[in-house]
């Protein structure tokens, strides 16, 4: 079951879910768009009552195992867990969420990183914080390895086969040659804890199991110039 929002980014997220379902053999039995009609259109009392509409919104759906939510704009998605007409697992932008970091990740030395971040900022570390840290750390790593501050050398090294960076995810992270996207494990978590880390065991790949995630080289038209 796929529920998606009406904004552009929601449609893009829904596309990604459809693509992943096809790729991993999942079947989307039905789809439904939740239209963002502004505050007071759906109910007299406005957007604050959206949570009460979720049960009705999910009432006439065919039998399904999991509800996938694509609502990057957060118009309705966060209200979906616990409010579906039939009790089902929720994943996507709500429920079980895939992200590059999770505030509760403590594995692979992550607890040290979390403690340091908490001490410095008085809050837990989010995905965007981790992305920023990893970006700076990648440049730092290349600077140390090339033993200097020559921007060209640093940039070349980061694109070379020798480059890797450690970011508390249990294995080295590298860049995908065809688009320079960071090749990294993805954490699956709910609001409080990390549930699992992908790639899931058993999904094999001829180059790197990390390339079972996202768009792989043979599937893309991207070619770095």
């Amino acid at each position, binding site marked *: 079951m796929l529920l998606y929002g009406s904004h552009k980014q929601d449609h893009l997220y829904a596309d990604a879910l459809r693509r992943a379902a096809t790729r991993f053999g999942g079947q989307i039995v039905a789809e439904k768009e939740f239209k963002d009609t502004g505050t007071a259109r759906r109910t007299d009392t406005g957007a604050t009552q959206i949570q009460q509409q979720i049960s009705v919104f999910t009432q006439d759906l065919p039998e399904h195992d999991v509800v996938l939510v694509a609502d990057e704009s957060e118009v309705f998605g966060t209200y979906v867990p616990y409010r579906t007409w039939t009790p089902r697992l929720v994943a996507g932008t709500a429920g079980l969420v895939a992200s590059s970091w999770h505030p509760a990740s403590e594995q692979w030395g992550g607890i040290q990183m979390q403690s340091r971040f908490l001490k410095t900022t008085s809050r837990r570390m989010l995905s965007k914080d981790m992305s920023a840290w990893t970006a700076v750390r990648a440049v730092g790593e290349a600077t140390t390895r090339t033993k200097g501050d020559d921007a060209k050398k640093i940039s070349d090294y980061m694109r070379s086969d020798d480059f890797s960076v*450690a970011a508390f995810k249990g294995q*080295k992270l590298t860049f995908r040659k065809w688009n320079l996207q960071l090749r990294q494990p993805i954490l699956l978590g709910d609001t409080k804890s990390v549930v699992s880390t992908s790639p899931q065991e058993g999904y094999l790949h001829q180059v790197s199991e990390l390339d079972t995630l996202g768009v792989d080289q043979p599937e893309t038209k991207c070619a770095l110039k």
Partner: protein
Amino acid sequence: MQKRACAFAILAAGLTASPASAYTAYVSNEKDNTMTVVDTATMQVVKTVEVGQRPRGITISHDGKFVYLCASDDDTVQIIDTATLEIVGTLPSGPDPELFVLSPDGKTLYVANEDDNLVTAIDVESKQVLAEIPVGVEPEGMGVSPDGKTMVNTSETTSMAHFIDTGTHEVTDNVLVDTRPRFADFKPDGTQVWVSAEVGGTVSVIDNAKREVVKKIQFAIQGLRAETIQPVGIAISADGKKAYVALGPANHVAVINTDTYEVEKYILVGQRVWHLAFTPDQKTLITTNGNSNDITFIDTATDEPVQSLTVGQQPWGVVISPK
């Protein structure tokens, strides 16, 4: 009575087949806050001792009388009397002690404080802090030269081996190694330091005189992806000829010829093999396998695993009594 005689006969037969001397091994179990005491001859658990929270680094006084244990989440090093197996004291380790090394004269304990980017030197006798030495980010691996003059600390996030002069407590050299260095071990002749890099997947051999990497050892196990090979613990034999490297989630121990730097064998042990220790007679090597909650005994003559033994939850470190 008859039963006992029979059991004795089996034991005696076992002893003739493999003349292992009886030593005591101590295993720290990170997850259930215990230390398992193991008889290395019978390969059986003798006792399980409750210790502080998140016990990791473990070592023993040179006379075998006291075990020192990093109780990481209690921010202390516990002293355990090996005769009574009771905690008889603590050492002021500083916060989050993870791994440490005892000086060859047995007087100083050097502790890595993972959260504070420090190495703390503690006088074991007076229980006083002698020095706090700033090092790289997330210090972990600790090695000391056989002459006691040089200490090496590795910092996980800085990816360096820091050489510290134990006389002045100053960092004299920083050697860049591969990503996330976890452990440092000196060769018995003091000429080299071997440093494992968990995420980098290599072992760097550093010349102690030149203070530079002279060899980088890579690993490859058929059927396993490169990412799963994560070297952590290192044990170099007393004659300096063989180095054993625990490869973490690869569940294997690599046996390396220290002359050629070739990996001669991969020994399958338990899951997430972390640290290792030799018995004093060098005939047996014991590995801790964190995810399968057991330890493996390896016969160093054949480099075959002999037996695995269930200990506590997530065994981390192991040390064996000198007697």
